[in-house]
């Protein structure tokens, strides 16, 4: 089985977000970048599937040279080779188009990624890729098992889940608990250095652009209520906060 895993490079989830140049540029200074947490789940499941039934895992990133540490980490976790489309991932459509271009040449059985990136939270790239390739797409997938040409999946829905069956090839947006995150071991880190990482040029355009950023208004002080008098909170929620 040939699996393509698409990863994003995003600030660590504990990062303090800020902007520069009159709030028009995202400030990367001092931030630690990681593989997108949802993408990391997709990668972990892809490596498990390869270990179970053979095949290859190719990791794909749309990003500048700055993302190579995250790509090398994915190789250390167990991907066999990598492709980097050398471009800023400017919007969902543009990123999806790069993935679809690579996928058309690679004949993959599964194209996996996170349900969304944790920076721009759009959660639509997998669907756009699926439509571009004319194959089914599912998200958010929380369980995945492959039996021959058939995928059995569980998708999370509001307040529950649904079980699904579909034939390969498929595009999947993944989330926990599809697999446990994998931590690279020393051997993986050593072999990752020599695994192939091909850099290719982008094609296509963005359909959206960001003109400015802003921060949410600062939260006011927290009103403390003595535990003995906890019941009075309910009255405050009714008369002061007006949420009950």
């Amino acid at each position: 089985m040939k699996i393509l895993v698409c990863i994003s490079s995003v600030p660590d989830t504990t990062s303090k977000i800020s902007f520069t140049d009159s709030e028009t540029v995202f400030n990367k200074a001092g931030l630690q970048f990681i593989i997108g947490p949802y993408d990391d789940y997709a990668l972990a499941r892809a490596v498990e599937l390869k270990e179970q039934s053979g095949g290859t895992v190719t990791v794909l990133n749309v990003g500048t040279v700055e993302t190579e540490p995250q790509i090398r980490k994915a190789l250390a976790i167990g991907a066999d080779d990598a492709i980097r489309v050398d471009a800023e991932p400017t919007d969902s459509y543009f990123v999806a188009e790069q993935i679809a271009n690579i996928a058309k040449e690679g004949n993959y059985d599964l194209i996996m990624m996170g349900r969304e990136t944790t920076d721009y939270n759009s959660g639509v790239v997998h669907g756009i890729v699926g439509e571009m390739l004319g194959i089914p797409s599912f998200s958010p997938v929380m369980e995945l098992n492959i039996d021959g040409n058939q995928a059995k999946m569980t998708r999370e829905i509001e307040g529950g889940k649904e079980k699904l069956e579909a034939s390969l090839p498929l595009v999947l947006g993944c989330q926990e608990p599809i697999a446990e995150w994998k931590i690279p071991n020393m051997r993986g880190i050593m072999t990752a250095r020599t695994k192939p990482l091909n850099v290719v040029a982008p094609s296509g355009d963005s359909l959206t652009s960001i003109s400015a950023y802003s921060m949410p208004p600062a939260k006011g002080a927290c009103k403390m209520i003595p535990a003995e008098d906890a019941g009075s909170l309910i009255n405050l929620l009714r008369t002061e906060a007006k949420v009950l």
Partner: protein
Amino acid sequence: MSILVFVELADGEIKKSSQEAIYYGAQLAKMLGTENNVLAIGEAGSDNLALAGNFGATKVLHASDDKYKAANIMAYSDILTAAAKQTGATVIISAKSSLADPVTARTAAALKAGIVGNVTALPDLSNGFTVTRSIFTGKAFAQTSISTDIKILGIKKNALSPVASTDKAVVESESFHADVNAKAFESKVTETVKAKGIIPLPEADLVVSGGRGMKGPDHWQPILDLADALGATTACSKPVSDLDWRPHHEHVGQTGVKIAPNLYIACGISGAIQHLAGVNSSKVIVVINTDPEAPFFKAADYGIVGDVFDVLPKLTAAVKAL
């Protein structure tokens, strides 16, 4: 030029989140001087669909077929694309959900339309078409311009507070047929498991949530009691769902469900930044924790330093006394 709202049905009725999307479409239709059409797929009574008028729908297109009973991402997207073409839609609107996001994503590709999700306000039309959207899981906002003729917007909960018209503006609904690629039905939903009788978290206005401070799955009764008294939905932190104390669909946070209720009551949750990311869109946050230094108090509107097992019954009693 017109607007098309993709609405979702639950038990034959228009979901609350979709009512918000219809209302958003109606406000935008006024700005653009155009119609606000609505597409509903699946089984629904015509009386229920007519209620779309109360939120500002001009007309309802209803695609009903036995094949559409189970939500099918590919089929629904084909229908949405066909309806957009037939009505000449230039803006497609949906409420963010596990169905609408993948459906509109495919339609965006089919129509080569710019798509923006988590939209928090009406667009600014003074210089093109610019929307404000939430990014970094609620930590910031981005003003995003869409350059294509057709635009697709995913609306975040509470972007606008819908005011249902009181004059019971009933609208006509007409049946809509689209050619759906037969391949769509090769994928099958074999089973749907859904908690009965509760409002799903993304739609809930009141949420009571528990963390590791609840000390174990057998100690959840005080949370269930308060939620029951309030008519609230229950949630939990990531460690709690990782430990299988509570089902995964209750996990709110950076990698779980993102919620935007009017009231979020956090019980025994310290407030790690990843948890805050999932709940920071709540209007009012109440934090109950034994540790006065818990970081969550900094993000809270009301706080109680105390034992949840002592505080929660007092809150439940006070709600019941209302």
